[in-house]
Structure formats: C-alpha cells, structure tokens
C-alpha cells in the first residue's frame, strides 16, 4: 500500500496516500470481534455440560442429578430445582439462542442509529407490530413457561373441564373441578383453557407447545441459514463448475418432497424431534442458497467491493466483511418466511400421530381433542388458533421486515 513511499518527504497536508491503511484494516481476520468472544465465552459452559452429558452421564441418570452427585453439591442443586435430564435438542436450542443474542440482538444494540432507522420504517406497519408483540409472547412463554409451570399431568377425574367463563353440561364432565349450577359445570382458573379427556390442562399444553415451536424455529433456521449462506456465497464466488454443481444440488433439494421423505425416514428408523429438525434442515436450505447466491452476485458488482479488491483484500475477506453483511438483512427476512412451513409440518405430523409422541406440541393437542370436538371444542380450538396466529405473525413480520430493510423487494415476499 503506502509503504513504498517515504512519508517524511511529503508535505503535512492531509493526503490520501498518507493514510496508514494497515492500521485501518487491522491485522486481517485473525482478531476476533467482541461478540464472537462473548459468544465463545457463553457457549463454552453449555458445550462442556453437553460433553459431560455425553461421556459421563449414564442412560438412566439425569444430567444435573449426575453432576450434583459428582460435585457433592446435592444441596444447592436441590434448592434450585435442578434435577432434570437435558436432551440433545435442548443443547442445540441453547447454542442457537446464544447465536441469536450475540449476532442479532447485540449488534442491534451496538448500532443504535441503524436500529432506529429500521425501527422507524418497521413501525409504520401496524399488523407487523402486533405480530412482533405476539411472537415475543410466544418466545417468552416458550422460554420461561416450562421453568414457571410444572409439566401438565394426566388426571382422568379432571377430564373435559371447560375453560374459564364457559360452562358445559355436567354429564360431559367426569368430576367438575369448579362449581356446578343448574347441572352445568363452570370452568375454573385452575385450568384457564379447560382440560383434555385425560385431564391435561390445555393452557399448560399450549405453553409447552410454544417451547417446541421455538426450538423448531430457532434450530432449523440456524441450520438452514448456515448451509444456505455457505453454499450460496461459495457458489456465487467460485463460479464455474462449483457454481453449476451447487445449483444442481439446490434443484434436487428443492424438488424433494420433504414431508414424504420424512415419512419414509420415520418409517424406516423411527424419528423424534431431533430427526425432524435434521431432515427438514437438510432439505430446507435450497431456497435460501439460491436467494443468497443471487444477492451475493448483485452485491459483488457494487463499487465498494471493487474498491476492496483493488486495495488488495482477499476473496475470503471480501465475502466475510462486505458480501455477507450486505446480504444479511434480506437473508433474515427470507428465513422468517421459512419458519411457518416448519411449524406447520411439525403440527401436521403430530396431528397424524406420526410425530414425536414424547413432546407436547400443538399438533398433539389438536389430535388429542379431535374425537371430543362436538362437546369439548376448546381442546382443538386453543392450540389451533395459537398455531394459526403464530404462522400469520411470522408471515406479517417477514413482509414488514422485507419492506423495512429492502424497499425494492416488495413483490418478492409474496412469491
């Protein structure tokens, strides 16, 4: 850069070629950003716990139970109520949450000016604001619900209780928890949304279903984003046969009927939530990769990328510092519009009784209430409406984000 000219020979007037480019650019790539450090710092204990779980905890022990026994700290662990097993999906969920916090929420906080700009544009869209509020409720409920509420329990005697404010004929209820007036059983606050045939609280079921939905939304999105962004940018930058092969792979992935393939996997191997997430991620990245590729191609035509290349930046640096950040906002939007499909697929499978029967998802609840629909419609209606509103909210939010970050792409959202 400017090293071959002698600075002292020049005049003191600020000149372009006297800028110390090495200092501006920093040492390339090797230094980690603050957010990456914080991410590594927070993810390390989770990975350590996962490793401990994998190697040291037996199949019949709970993770924290084994940890308490190993560290002789049963007392504090009991007071905190830490005695439960952690599934692989939970570790993945925790890691994706940290990714979300350090690479999406923290940057928004660190750059208040651009955040305020997006917020001003986003705020104009009233339905999107309501959607965001609803999704925050689902997110908060899913995250905190299982910690605050204990898991819903079977209690056959408390079956078919009506929701608060409603009453049903006493004959339909095994044993009314609330008051019985004129032969009609009234709902109580013990079960705000009523109960199923088996006496599971529908409200608790809905809250626990939020957790499942949030897990699916976060983990699949992270996996899809990881694969999609990698394939898309590599394909755009490598060009030639790499591009050709990658795009053919995208074609194949897109023409694979994922739901049916999952049925086949489920039939052959049996499948839980983890397998669901993996299969839907493996076949879900096609659209994202294609989208990222076209975005990356258009960004790489921009002047600042040419400028970067002329000043000697490597391809790796250009992709990481210029192409990916400049496509990030539209990628996030595209991912928001993918989530409803995953949630719907899980609900469909659970409804068919082909999902993971050990988890309390909304689809399971809908399936459980289907036979009692005529006299206990709340069992189907409550989770069904929550599912409907969540899918609707993701669609509205995706559209609004698209308008906020990329005014030119309005029509793309509806394709």
């Amino acid at each position: 850069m400017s090293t071959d000219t002698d600075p002292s020979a020049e005049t003191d007037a600020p000149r372009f070629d006297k800028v110390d480019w090495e200092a501006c650019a920093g040492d390339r790539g090797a230094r980690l950003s603050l957010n990456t450090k914080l991410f590594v710092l927070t993810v390390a204990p989770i990975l350590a716990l996962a490793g401990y779980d994998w190697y040291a905890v037996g199949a019949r022990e709970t993770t924290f139970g084994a940890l308490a026994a190993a560290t002789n700290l049963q007392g504090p662990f009991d007071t905190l109520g830490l005695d439960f097993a952690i599934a692989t999906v939970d570790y993945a969920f925790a890691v994706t949450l940290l990714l979300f916090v350090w690479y999406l929420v923290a940057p928004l906080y660190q750059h208040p000016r651009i955040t305020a700009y997006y917020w001003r544009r986003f705020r104009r869209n009233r339905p999107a604001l309501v959607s965001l509020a609803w999704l925050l409720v689902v997110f908060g409920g899913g995250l905190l619900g299982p910690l605050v509420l204990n898991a819903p329990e079977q209690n056959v005697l408390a079956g078919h209780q009506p929701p608060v404010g409603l009453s049903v004929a006493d004959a339909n209820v095994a044993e009314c928890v609330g008051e019985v007036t004129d032969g009609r059983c009234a709902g109580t606050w013990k079960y705000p949304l009523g109960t199923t045939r088996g006496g599971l609280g529908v409200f608790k079921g809905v809250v626990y279903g939020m957790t499942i939905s949030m897990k699916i939304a976060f983990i699949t999105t992270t996996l899809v984003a990881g694969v999609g962004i990698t394939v898309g940018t590599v394909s755009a930058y490598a060009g030639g046969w790499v591009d050709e092969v990658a795009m053919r792979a995208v074609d194949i992935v897109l023409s694979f009927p994922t739901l049916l393939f999952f049925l086949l996997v489920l039939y052959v191997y049996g499948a839980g939530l983890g397998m669901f997430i993996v299969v839907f991620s493996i076949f879900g990245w096609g659209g994202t990769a294609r989208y990222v590729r076209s975005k990356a191609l258009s960004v790489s035509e921009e002047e600042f990328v040419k400028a970067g290349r002329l000043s000697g930046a490597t391809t790796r640096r250009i992709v990481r510092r210029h192409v990916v950040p400049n496509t990030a906002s539209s990628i996030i939007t595209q991912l928001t519009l993918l989530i409803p499909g995953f949630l719907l697929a899980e609900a469909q499978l659970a409804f068919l009784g082909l999902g993971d029967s050990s988890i309390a998802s909304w689809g399971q609840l809908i399936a459980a209430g289907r036979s009692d629909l005529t006299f206990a419609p709340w069992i189907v209606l409550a989770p069904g409406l929550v599912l409907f509103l969540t899918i609707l909210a993701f669609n509205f939010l995706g559209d609004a984000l698209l308008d906020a970050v990329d005014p030119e792409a309005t029509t793309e959202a509806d394709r």
Partner: protein
Amino acid sequence: MGLARYVALRVGWAAVVSLIIVTVTFGLLAAAPNPSVQQAATQAALEGGNPQEAVERERQLRGLDEPLHVRYLDFLQGVYTLEWGWSEYRSQPVTTALFDAVSYTAQYSIPWTILTVLLGPLIGVYSAANMYTWRDHAATGFAFFGYAIPNFFFGIILLLVFGVWLEWIPIVYRTEVPTFSLANARQLVIPVFVLVTGSIGAIMRVSRNESAAFQNATFMKTAKAKGVSPLRAYAYHVMRPTLVPLSTTLVGQLLAIFLGSSLLVEVVFGIPGLGRLTFNALVAQDTNLVLGSTLLFTFLAVVGNLLEDLAFTVLDPRISYDDRDL
C-alpha cells in the same frame, strides 16, 4: 440452444433427479434393518421356532443375501418397470392399490386445481384494479388468512360447523355414491373449499403485485384512450402478461400443498385417496405400499416441476435458452 435441445436437456435432467431420489430411497432402506425380517424373527420366536433360521429364510426370500449392487439394480429395474410389489395390507398389488386411490384423490384435486387457477389470478387482478380500497383489503385479508390457517385445523372446524352443528354435509365420506352426483358434490365441497383457501392466497398476492405494474403501463393508457372497455382492457392487456411470471410459481405452489395437505385433508375427511393410503400403509407397516406411495408422490413432484419449466418456456419466448437454468 434451440427449443428442442432445451426441452430434451430438461427432460433428461428430470430423469436424473428421479434417479437420484430413487437411489437415496434405496440407500435409506438398505441401511436400516428390514421390518419384515424382524417380523419374521418375532413370529418364529413366538411360535417356538428358531429366530435365526427364520431371519435367514426371510432374507433369502427377499433377496437380501445378495450383494448390494445386485439388489440396487434389481430395485431400479422394479421401480422403473412399475413392479412395485405386493401390498400385504391391501392384499393386492401396490400399483392396483395406488390406482384405486388415485381416482378418489382426483375427485377433489381436479376441481380444486381448476378453481385455484381460475379464481387466483382473477381476484388478484381485481384486487390490483381496486388497489387500497376496502375490496383490496378484504381480498388481501382473505389471502393471508388462507395462507396462514393450517388446512387440517380449518377442515376440522368446518366439519364441526357444517357437518355436526348445521348438518348440511355428511360427516362420513361415502365411497358408494356415483362420482358425478349431487351427494358426491356435497361431501367434497368442504375439502375443496379448504384446499382452495390454502392455495389461492399466494397466487392472489403474486398476481396482484405483478398486475399492479401493468395497469399503469403506456399500453393501458393507449387502450383506455382508444375507448376499449375496462373488461377487455384488463383481460387482454393486464391478465396476459401477469400470467407469465405467475406460471413459474403456480405449479410449485399447488404441488407443495398437494403433497402436504392432501394427506391431512384426506385423513380429516376420511377420503380413501392417495394420502390416506400412505398414512394407512405407514400405520400398518406395509413397506411396499409405503415405498410405492412415496415414490408416486415424488414422481408427481418431478413431473410437475418439469411441466412448469416447459410451460414457462412456451409462454415467454423473450428469454434466450442459453442463460437459463435447466
């Protein structure tokens, strides 16, 4: 590259995709323990026989003791010559079972597809013509509602309201009614309605946004200045160019909903079509039938994508074949 060459290449590519899908399916089955072998072992153990011997016999019977590549070639040959085996659960050849089911699926799929293809662009263009009026907002609201409500949930609710409470439609699907009869129309109207609501939203939105660009174009001004009636102007000058970009999304949309929702809608309404057959096969552990129905759906998807691309080529002659994805 000429049209014929492009079509040939595209058809060839579809064949390659189908081959890859079949190969992945084979790999999946080959890597897992075969359920019928396990069944044989359990059977033998229950009847006091030797499970090991039964496993050997079953493996030999199903040709599992042959080398992998021989089994693979056999599998390929079976798939592409439509020898899809015997369905234990239906006690008939898999192809016959599938063929029987297709007729029930077609009974609601054909009206559904026709309605979606007709109404979607019409309402979309109408919505664009009345942009930002209450009619547009109502249409947009309907589009989002249909797009977001899970088909199976919507079906259950409608079945409750119209079947159980109002008793307008039968709750149980009857197969014995003739195809072209009022009774059949009555029992299919709600499934068709549910599927149309689900698929029409996206098509309405695309045609609304696409046609918005055309209705202010100079050729529309010319048409209006010449005194062309609004109906004719919209039909000839807005609808036609709108249909070209629409055709790229239409088949994909319909296929996605068909593959996912037909399964759910058939289970909810008790229609004994392809989706229900697949579901029953899964529950009854009938490997041949599961394989047959998933392969059929997959081939439908491949052929659908192929037709979509070919239709686009014929409809839009402006793009050269060279810089187009296969």
